[in-house]
């Protein structure tokens, strides 16, 4: 069972369920009869929220557009409408909420961009099971190896009755290089995001592709680092129970 990939945006027009006229997929309301449109196979949260497909977005504009569209779509305002419109309002509101939540978080925003640009899915942060994925990203091999060795030793020491305070100190020390790695990755993500924004209208497709691939690699590593940090947190928590 794997999470479904986000449907890729289709260029087709959409038939209005109320009057039958065709409407472009980016429209929310039928240009012909002005009723709310059923949700087609959309897939681009940026255009849905009226934003350019870039990674540094104006969060206030995002919020404003979200509020404005909420006021247009929300099921509260379709109580007396036809069943088709009520369904469309439910679908469109749900989709809007999804889109807003995704674009609010910088990491989820990058993941979404990669998906709509056709790159393979990155395991989403929220759906993480708490266990590091099986394959260690090559760039992190050294850190992961050192950390696992230290964690094994700490567990052994704990079993043979070492005091919690000294073990906690060792965990903190073990955490330091991982924290540094995370900071590095956050900085890389920011730099690559800015690079994408600059290239997206001007650069050659091959160059854009390279930037997206780089974003994906760094994002995968970052998610892996977060899982490592979660593992350390769990070790710290288990000391608290001693």
């Amino acid at each position, binding site marked *: 069972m794997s999470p479904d990939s986000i449907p890729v945006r289709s260029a087709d027009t959409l038939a209005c369920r109320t009057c039958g006229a065709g409407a472009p997929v980016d429209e929310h309301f039928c240009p012909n009869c002005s009723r709310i449109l059923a949700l087609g196979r959309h897939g681009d949260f940026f255009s849905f929220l009226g934003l350019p497909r870039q990674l540094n977005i104006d969060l206030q504009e995002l919020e404003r557009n979200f509020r404005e569209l909420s006021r247009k779509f929300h099921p509260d305002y379709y109580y007396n409408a036809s069943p088709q419109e009520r369904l469309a309002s439910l679908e469109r*509101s749900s989709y809007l909420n999804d889109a807003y939540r995704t674009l609010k978080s910088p990491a989820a925003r990058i993941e979404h961009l990669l998906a709509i640009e056709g790159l393979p899915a990155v395991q989403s942060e929220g759906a993480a099971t708490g266990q590091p994925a099986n394959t260690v990203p090559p760039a992190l091999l050294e850190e992961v190896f050192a950390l696992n060795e230290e964690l094994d030793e700490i567990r052994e020491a704990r079993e043979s009755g070492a005091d919690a305070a000294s073990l906690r100190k060792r965990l903190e020390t073990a955490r330091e290089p991982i924290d540094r790695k995370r900071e590095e990755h956050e900085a890389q993500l920011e730099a690559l995001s800015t690079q994408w924004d600059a290239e997206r209208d001007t650069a050659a497709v091959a160059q854009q592709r390279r930037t997206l691939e780089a974003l994906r690699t760094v994002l995968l590593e970052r998610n892996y680092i977060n899982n490592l940090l979660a593992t350390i947190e769990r070790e710290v928590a288990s000391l608290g129970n001693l």
Partner: protein
Amino acid sequence: MSKVVGIDLGTTNSLVAYVGPKGPEVIRDSSGDALVPSVVSIGDNGTVYVGREAQRQLLVTPDRAVYSVKRFMGRGIDDVQEDAGLLPFRVGGEPGGVVRIGIADREFTPPEISAFVLRELKHRAEQFFQEQGEFDFEVDRAVITVPAYFNDAQRTATRDAGRLAGLEVLRIISEPTAASLAYGLDKKNRGTIAVYDLGGGTFDISILKVEEGVFEVLATSGDTHLGGDDFDNLVIHLLLRDLELSGHDSTPELVQAIRKAAIHAKQELSEQDETEIRVGPSTALPAGYRRQMTRNEFEELIGPLVERTMAPVRQALADAGLLPKDIDEAVLVGGSTRIPMVRRAVADLFGRTPHSDLNPDEVVALGAAVQADILISGRREMLLLDVTPLSLGIETMGGVVSKIILRNSTIPATGREMFTTGVDNQTAVDVHVLQGERELASDCRSLARFKLRGIPPMPAGLPRIEVRFQIDANGILSVAARELRTGLEQTIEVKPSYGLTDEEVERMLIESFEHAEADFEARLLIDARNEAESVVTATEKHLRRRDFDAIEQELLPGELQRVDEALQALKDAVGATDRDAIQQRTHALNHATKHLAEITMNRSIREALAGKNVKDV
């Protein structure tokens, strides 16, 4: 046009409100009381009593009354053992199924009991609209509130209760957000608000961002098992221990008398530093019972419970990505926030005095009425964007939960999951839906089990079945499925883990029509009693006048004796359940006092005209 109302269906008390020409208002009874105690009792002849009347029955025949039923909504017998032990009514049901409550020789599910309370509120509102001279006073639609932290099963049970009471439930909304709507009415301001809602049985904390009339919930948390009831129980236990030490057995009647005294003491200690707890003498306790309690002593008892509310508050703040200092306003909701210690705890945490300008008992019902008005009128000045309080997931291999919609997601929300088959030509797949934050399915709340049927026979792993989860604006889940290779819609059989099936709700509706006659009779009896009591009160007022000696001079020979007899006869009838007798004797007393009333009225008029001179008469 029939009427719509907002209903706060509480653990201890319930209320109904509507939006009138002057804004939202709570609907009160003739004596000005807005609260209907959420108590239901069944009389000897099967009649159902609700509210104050049921509360009176609770003291006399505790085994025939039910209260705090909100604690059982959408729950299984295995969840409620601890509560069941403290309550005087029988609680049963199949393990893994819905709770059944036994009173007298009848058995009810929690939604049926709640439906009695809702019917009472519906009746109260209809009577009010009728008195207002409305042509169409029928109330058939309502917004009903639930604790923010209620899960899907608890919300569904509440909606079922509404249906059973003959109400179309326009929307289920959460109590703290409803309160924020009521608060936000006359304020055009913006900011971040924390709503701390401590009611009779539940605790909620919601963090909202208000901007341009949009009330967006950022995060919510709570404890559906923490409220004023728990404070009462601590005092009750203390008193029972005292009594046990002095060698008394606790009978259900004694426990109810003690409960009443404990609640009274709790309320007094919000106003004063010390109170005397008094339980009158009874067969079980011939000498009665007295004890002093100081506010300090009470606070020592409840301190740990008040502290327990702080963990959800911190969780909600963390989920919203905020610190206590980021909160612009804190709002108190729920009767238990009258307790000074609770107010102090909230003030200390947020570093500001919390708002309590609106009556904390009434603010939720007012907000529900506002939401009902928005739905019906289509007015768009305000919009409530609530969240789902708990993550939704499905059970995967090894009993681990895979989360599909995360907690604090704005609703409506959707989630998708792909399924396939494990065996060649398999035509059905089992799906187990859960709600909660824990990793293992066994630690989460089971919502339902589905069977996806009608999968076209294919080699294992080839079918691609997309299951779509939709949480609607009520916070209630629905599921749809489709096999993507063939485009076939799948049939889904829903078996709610702790809820009623549609068939069960239908059957209960039919049963409730069958009982409607008895229930209608109960209603008429209560109305007759109320009328009788007001005539008795009026008569006694005449007889107690300071100028009664002079009045008596004007009466005909034997007239006073006839009044006394009619008064006594009516008082006797009110204590029994013969409605015809009550009505006849009310009429008789009215008739017997007609002359007396005329005399006193004439005297009052003369006094008023003559000024102060007649005062010494």
